[in-house]
């Protein structure tokens, strides 16, 4: 249990938006579902803080990157379900390529892992 907490990574500012958009690419989902999906898909490393999940969802909704509607869940519970809008799909694509650029750049600075261990 303790181990798992140490391995958790604070999400970089702005990255949460990218993760939400990416998660919604697989279909409409409610907030709790999105949190579960991010945790599961990151192998339990990224744990979404609910305190920032809902502000992020509503921010994205306001920016019209995602749309929301009320639906009944399989447990017959009223839930607010989010899905990706056309603008959201476009934003996701550009954010993905930007992320790729940055991680490439950072990797470039850090250099190949092999060198590190040689030293």
């Amino acid at each position, binding site marked *: 249990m303790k181990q798992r907490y140490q391995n958790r990574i604070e999400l*970089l*500012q*702005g*990255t949460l*938006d990218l993760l939400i958009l990416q998660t919604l690419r697989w279909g409409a989902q*409610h*907030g*709790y579902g999105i949190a579960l999906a991010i945790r599961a898909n990151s192998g339990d490393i990224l744990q979404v*803080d*609910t*305190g920032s999940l*809902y*502000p992020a*969802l*509503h*921010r994205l909704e*306001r920016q019209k990157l995602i749309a929301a509607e*009320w639906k009944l*869940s399989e*447990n017959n*519970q*009223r*839930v*607010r379900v989010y899905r990706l809008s056309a603008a959201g799909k476009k934003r996701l694509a550009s954010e993905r390529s930007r992320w790729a*650029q*940055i991680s490439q*750049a*950072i990797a*470039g*600075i850090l250099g190949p892992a092999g060198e590190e261990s040689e030293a």
Partner: protein
Amino acid sequence: MKFPWGDGEQRKKELNEEIVSHLQMAARDREARGESPTQAADAARRELGNAGVVQDVTHDQWAWTWLEDLLQDVRHSLRTLRKSPGFTSIAVLTLALGIGANTTIFSMVDSIVLRPLPIKDPDQTAVLAFHKGNGPLQFRFSVPDYQELGDQASASFSGLMCYLSGMDGLAVNGKSDRIMTNYVSGNYFSVLGLKPALGRLILPSEGETLGADPVMVLSYSYWQVHFGGDPNVVGRAVSVNGHPITIVGIAPAGFHGMSPFLSVQGFLPLGMASIGVYPKDFMVNRGERLVIVTGRLQPGITLQQAQSSLGVIGQRLSQTYPNTDEAMNIQAFLRLQAADPQHTTLVISGLFLGLAALVLLLACTNVANFLLVRATAREREMAIRAALGAVRSRLIRQLLTESVVLAFLGGVAGLLLGYFGSSTLGSIHLQTDLPVQFDFGFDWRVFTYALVVALLTGVIVGIAPAIRSSSGLATVLREGGRGIAGGKYRLRRALAVAQVAGSLMLLIIAGLYARSLMEAQRIDLGFDSSHVLNLSMDPNQIGNSEAQGREFYKNLLDRVRALPGVESASIAAVVPLGYLSNADTPVIDGYEPPTSQSVPPFLYNVISPDYFETMRIPMVRGRTFTSADDANTQYVGIVNEAMSKQFWPNQDPIGHHFKLGSEPGHSIEVVGVVKDSRFDSITSPIAPFFYLPFAQHYTFNSLETLQVRTYAAPEAMMPEIQRTIATLSPDLLVFDVETMRQGLYTLGGLLGFQIGAGLAASLGGLGLILAIVGVYGVVSFAASQRTHEIGIRMALGASPADVLKMVFREGAMIVLVGLAIGLAAAFAAGRVARNFLVVSATDPVTYVTVSVLLATIALAACYIPARRAMRVDPMVALRYE
């Protein structure tokens, strides 16, 4: 339109439901994993954190994010700016100079052009004017014509009022003052929609009969200043021009009559104009055009619709009264059009607003340059922010906020500078004792203007650096910070070129004005302004009869001539280049005007015999006036050469006759011709002008200016002459006391050039400083970027002189290209200004001098970085990289 937080309550409820459902789902999952229901619910809640806070924060996403972001950006900007006080203060000062210059000029334009009169719905009022045939536009109507207009134009105008202006003597408890008055029709105040501050205003029933209704309404400010705001002033008996008058009320605060420049201090009924110096039959004589007519349009009626109905009335008047109103074409104008039919004010305003905007642009380019340098230094910061997830638009916004905050600070400082500038301008003495109203005070329009200018400045200054420094961020990180200076450097060079061009244009305009002032001061005015004193007075203002007035002036001239040190003395109704003028459309015997009946009005003067001696205007032919020319002898006149040439070409005008349009009863015989001299303008061609003897035209010319030519310095004689006047008439008000030299500095005289030269020179000086800073900055930046290269060159054997040449070439290119563009721009701006100049708008002296001056100073500014580059130690430079 829905506000983002408009449906807040509904959203809050839904948000609550969303969070609750989240908690339920989380608890259910935990129960499924074997926790007890209470444990599961607690854990889920713990995991979520404070549900209230989460809801609040989420809710805020809808409402205040933009404001929060803005506040955060502003806070961040202020912090950043505080960290570099040097940069901040220079940038703020630079922008303050630019914004201050703009605010000053704008406050002037505002008070002259934009500020509406403090009356009800000023947009609905229109000033009437007319042409006769092809004649010039005239704004003065006769009272009978005004009355018919009022009766017939009611379909277009809900009311038409009229007024005429005068300067009168107001005596309160034996103390006299000279005030500007309006004699107004009874409906004057009701048409303007004004309510009294105290007592009552002029009533519609008043003013119909000559000499009836001896009442007066004071302006609010006159009441405040001269009566200390005493409410008991209502009902007080005073005297105006020696006639008993009762003060019945106070006009509303801020209202000074219909002129934007002059401040009316007392309002009397139209019929009371009998106490002023007006023809006694002006209420009934259709040929006596004295009153200005202003109307309020009926609701829903446009100016064009009113025009067409006025056209019909004009035709009717022409047919009914062909003697006086033939071919009368009546039109309506907005107040501004009426005040400025030639658009002179608009053109001058536009010119100077343009020049001020140019100064601001120069300031902007400088600050943009500073920001570019900073942006280079901050590339890494930006790259890291971007890596942390900041969106590019957010970064641009943050940088823009920074420059807008900077510009805003500059705007506040600029308002202070502008206030200083406009109070300096407002305190210029116009060489007149008329109650001139030059209130360049700041109103909301000036503040709004400054704010908008500051915001625009912030965006203009910040947009290029912001976009540049937020692009290519990945490159920065990859390359480890060598940056993208090359691209920015091209932009900076272009900015410096623009600065040189802009400041050259400003300086050339300033030079043209300065040269015009110099030329105007040297121009032969046709009279000798040195050693002459002017003192104006009007015996009618203390109730003197015509006989008393004639006697007074005769005695005055005798006594003053007898004073030691006086060479000659004379009186004249009009002083050259002054603010008053006499005009008439004379009928010349035996002269048929070409094509139409339009003879423009000529200016004339009413003078005493020694006038030409005092002014030193040479006689060309014939004789001057003598004391023998009086009311009982043949009426005589003297014309200038221009009038002689126009009406009696190749003839001797002496012995020919003409009649005054306003006084057709007397035939005037030309007895002399004098040399042309300048009366109303320094620049325009000299127009026909004539002189009439005072003794034959006293009635409407009781206001005269005593002119005294002295042997020694004229100022020293002033007290003695004033004492002489006081002995003869102790109560008489003497005004516009000045030397003739000072009298030349009026708005129509030299003052216009002086103000123009001063303003243009201030703007040009600012522009020059900004351009020098710009060129210096670019050249030294370029040199410092090339330190490495210079080091290599020197190591390879380049001499210091080669390096000097290299750096100079950089500066010289900027200066040369800037000069070429600036000359072209100045040429264009000169065309706009040419009507207000004495020298040609393409005056080569100005263009060459200013260009050489600017080039020299700009190249001198390059010398400092060039020297620094020359001293580069190759070893240090190479090691540094």
